[in-house]
């Protein structure tokens, strides 16, 4: 990690206690810290805080954190209220891996000078490393508030939102921001995760056109194109990147992976050989070469490559699987069984593995176990086929629903749900379609099935609450609304529904709390505003 130095304004505030905290990291005393002659001379000439800062920075840049710390200690003695120096201390401790110890000096720096971005970012990074996510997020948000254009702050906040799965917020945050590679990649990822692949592709294509040498952009675009099933274009982009970065192993690996995925083995195989000859111990070159040789029927060669690959990365389930395939072809059933078992134990879920495993088991006479594996294979493939059927029927149903034919939609959703009885989302959509047809009894039944499958399906909980409320069962309605807001605290409508239900039972204080939650989320929510008025009036009358 490079030791970045930032210029920060200083405010003189005494804090000897914090000094002690800063240096309680148990560092071995740096007996003789000598920096470059020029800086030493400057220090001798003017032993002021800035000279110490300059020298300490030099030590930090050269990863001599003990000396950096000692030098900053000296600086703090001269300017004990310096936000900059506290920041540098925090940075040093963080760089040296003393994350916990970095917290206090960084907090101090922020306390002294809260309107500087970097300390917030650094403190956020420290909290993040300590898995104190909420505190990390608060620091990043603070940084963004100070400087809404700070790319580091935007990047940090975006990543935090991405980790939370809040892709919509990332899109909202980053869409208007001028180009920056990190932010472009964050935005592309948010688009991708939101299944807005066209937008992701457009964004990355434009960025790559402007910055054709960016490997990160080309890798991201390739990934998006493959997710869009535009294999040929993906191949072109990956190839271009590989040509631009002929010595970048990651670029070469990526290109080779795309070629293998696309089945372009006439190009892939000679390329794999060339890359492997240049980097004979590279896991990916060994692994992909193994796959290619398997496909070509060269099982002996495949076995050699893949044996080396699994030795390099014993936790790569697909390498074990492919080695198993090669061994099976070579009739080494015992070896194949071992590899396929390993693949499964590492979490492989593809049904094909069960199939191959069954073949290996039969090869060594374990026919009963082989039958069991084939049974699992059949179950998995059947489940996949049923899922495909459900998705297709569901999509047709959505079409019918959108075109105003809820009856047809109901029939199709029923077929989809029959094919995928564990799918809460489909159940919920069926319920909505039933609602449109006026069949609330069936709707209620289906909604109950939906929340049984997924109690956190907030929309279903809310709808059930609504039906129960209409049906004169406020207790049940309340429970469902509470479940809805528990599952989705940002679900304004559910808060409003809860508030209304509580109000109907004259539980005004609770109702007011619920309304307040709704208005926090959406201050202009008309229903919530009206309800608040009504609550006020109701309480006034009492």
């Amino acid at each position, binding site marked *: 990690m490079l030791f970045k130095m930032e210029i920060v304004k200083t405010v003189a505030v005494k804090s000897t206690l914090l000094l002690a905290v800063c240096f309680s990291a148990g560092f071995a005393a740096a007996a003789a810290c000598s920096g470059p002659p020029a800086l030493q001379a400057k220090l001798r000439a003017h032993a002021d805080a800035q000279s110490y800062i300059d020298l300490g920075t030099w030590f930090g840049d050269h990863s001599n954190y003990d000396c950096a710390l000692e030098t900053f200690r000296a600086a703090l003695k001269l300017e004990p209220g310096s936000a900059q120096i506290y920041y540098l201390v925090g940075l040093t401790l963080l760089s040296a891996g003393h994350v916990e110890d970095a917290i206090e000096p960084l907090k101090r720096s922020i306390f002294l000078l809260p309107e500087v971005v970097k300390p917030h970012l650094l403190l956020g990074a420290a909290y993040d490393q300590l898995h104190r996510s909420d505190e990390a997020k608060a620091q990043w948000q603070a940084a963004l508030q100070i400087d809404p254009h700070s790319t580091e702050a935007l990047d940090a906040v975006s*990543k935090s939102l*991405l*980790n939370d799965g809040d892709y919509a917020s990332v899109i909202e945050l980053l869409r208007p921001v001028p180009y920056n590679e990190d932010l472009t*990649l964050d935005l592309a*990822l948010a688009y*991708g*995760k939101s299944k807005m692949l066209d937008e992701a592709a457009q964004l990355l294509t434009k960025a790559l056109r402007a910055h054709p040498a960016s490997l*990160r952009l080309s*890798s*991201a675009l390739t*990934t998006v194109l*493959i*997710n*869009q*099933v*535009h*294999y*040929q274009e993906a191949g072109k982009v990956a190839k271009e990147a590989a040509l631009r970065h002929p010595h970048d192993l990651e670029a070469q690996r*990526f290109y080779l*992976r*795309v070629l*293998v*995925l*696309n*089945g*372009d*083995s*006439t190009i892939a195989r000679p390329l794999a050989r060339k890359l492997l000859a240049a980097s004979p111990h590279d896991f990916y070159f060994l692994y992909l070469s193994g*796959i290619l040789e*398997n*496909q*070509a*029927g060269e099982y002996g060669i495949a076995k050699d490559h893949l044996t080396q690959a699994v030795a390099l990365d014993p936790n790569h389930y*697909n390498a074990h*699987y*492919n080695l198993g*395939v090669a061994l099976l072809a070579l009739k080494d059933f015992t070896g194949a069984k071992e590899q396929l078992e390993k693949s499964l134990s590492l979490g492989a879920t*593809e*049904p*094909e*593995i*069960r*199939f*191959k495993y069954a073949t290996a088991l039969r090869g060594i006479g374990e026919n009963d176990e082989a*039958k069991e594996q*084939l049974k699992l*294979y059949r179950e998995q*493939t059947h489940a996949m*086929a049923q899922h*495909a*059927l459900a*998705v*297709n*029927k569901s*999509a*047709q149903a959505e079409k*019918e629903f959108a075109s105003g034919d809820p009856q*047809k939609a109901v029939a*199709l959703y029923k*077929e989809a749900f029959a094919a995928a009885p564990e799918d809460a989302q489909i159940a919920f959509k069926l319920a909505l379609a039933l609602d449109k047809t006026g069949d609330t009894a069936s709707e209620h039944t289906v909604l109950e099935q939906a929340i049984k499958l997924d109690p956190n399906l907030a929309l279903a909980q809310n709808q059930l609450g609504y039906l129960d409320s209409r049906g004169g069962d406020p207790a049940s309605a309340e429970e469902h609304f509470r479940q809805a807001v528990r599952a989705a605290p940002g679900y304004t409508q559910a808060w409003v529904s809860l508030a209304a239900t509580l109000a109907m039972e004259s539980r005004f204080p609770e109702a007011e709390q619920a309304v307040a939650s709704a208005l926090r989320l959406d201050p202009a929510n008309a229903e919530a505003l009206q309800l608040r008025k009504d609550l006020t009036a109701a309480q006034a009358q009492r």
Partner: protein
Amino acid sequence: MPPKWTRRDLLRTLPAALATPLVPHALRAATTNAKAAAPFSRFVDIASSAGLTQTMVYGDPNHNTYIIEVNGAGCAFFDYDNDGWVDIFILGGRKLEGPVPGASNRLYHNNRDGTFTDVTSKAGLIDAGWANGVCVGDYNNDGFEDLYLTYYGQNKLYRNNGDGTFTDVTAKAGLLETGTRFGSGSAFVDYNRDGLLDLFVSNYVEIDLATAAKPSLKIPNCNFEGVPTNCGPGGLGFPAHSLYRNNGDGTFSDVSKESGVAALRGSYGFTVVAFDADEDGWQDIYVACDATPSMLLMNNHDGTFREEALIRGVALGSGGETLGGMGVGIGDYDLDGHIDLVKTHFVNQATGVYHNNGKGEFEDVTARVGFAAERRFSSWGTGLVDLDNDGHPDVLIVAGTVAPELERAYPNKYPARDPRLIFRNQGNGTFAEMPEAEVGPAISSRHVSRGCAFGDFDNDGDLDVLIMNRNEPPSLLRNDAPSGNHWIKIRLEGVQSNRSAIGSRALVRYGGKVQAQCVVSQSSFLSSNDPRLHFGLGAETFADVEIHWPTGKMESFSHLAADQLITIREGQGIVKGRAFR
């Protein structure tokens, strides 16, 4: 809990997020190692001069909205008038908007001079629906071959009246179906060894055009590599398949339930080939299936079947992946006396070769025998047949797109019209794909083809090829096999067994080799071959023949001279058969 995504994770999961890396992907054509060998056959497309000029309408040539427009159709070589010269029957279709004036299935009478006459109307076979497949067999044992056609809609049984005409006896035979089904493959098969041809029908998908989805990028299975295409088969409902027992009185009974066939759901059925896979004397049924495991129904000898394709190695690809199984070639590629299978597949999938050890246990030898490289085209009709009479069965494949829209987006990768492919048997258990430059224009010309049938229409001792081309006239490839190679043809006539001898297995021994073939009513893609079993003998001038009849009897004949058609009648030996030359 959603995964914590970082850019690094996205890159790392590139293979996992996409098509599974476990599935072998396209392996572009590697080198073809065709030995500089003896001359091979030359093929000449004589369809036009032969009078096969009617366009076989089938869906829109540029854009297919629904999958029913895609699969058709099959064709047949069969001798409907018993004059010893095989005639031609080709299935056609219609368009979504309706039948096209003048379009129909077509029956062409062989004039014995290299030309054919369209006798469709005269024969009573005019029909323009979504016809898919044909199987041929004498279901009423009256000595005349009948036809069973599958449709999206109502399948039809045409009884051959023996006078050049046919009658639709579907209703009379008890074969009317309720509801609309997507009939696909079919086979006459004597599954209970009573001497009568029963009927197995596979269905493709369940689809109701009233609610079926249309090409869309937003609906899974309704697009391909970013191009909206006709939906399916994935995501469409799984149909039931049917078995009908021949009652011996011109009618059939639906025994799907009691036989266990009705319980088979989960596969999209295509070509049906009935043969004795495990050589126990009882007919088994193999169904090539699309995007789902293919099926091998093993005969329990008691009127029921058990499905064992998975455990017997013919359900899936060698990696356990489901393949788009379309057509089936049946023969003995390695001359070990057992029936092997060749199955054509979807684009980006190699045609599969499955070696039978004689016990109905199959090994996927696709890569080993030299088929792994060729994956460029969606492949349909096929035959494991000796084209050059050198004594080693070759493989011919016809191809064509399932989605003409793909060509606009990917003109090089997914051209709509594709060439025929020939894999020449090297004589050592492997094949070599013959390069376009060697095969001649009739093979290398490009069409959207589906079914093909193999037969000797000119009775010159080699196998010609009839090909159904969508929205074009058919191709009729006359085979000019190299002179010097000998052959023998065998026509079987059942007496106790069904008259067509469907289900018979012949072993022919020549020059230290043994080759197995069987009489089937359907193979290739939804098509039916000339029922005369054709064996190339290479340099050998004599052969020994062993026949295993479907009712269990075995007969053998020694030292038969090459270059002739032998007619063997069950229990009566070699008889004077139909005219040959």
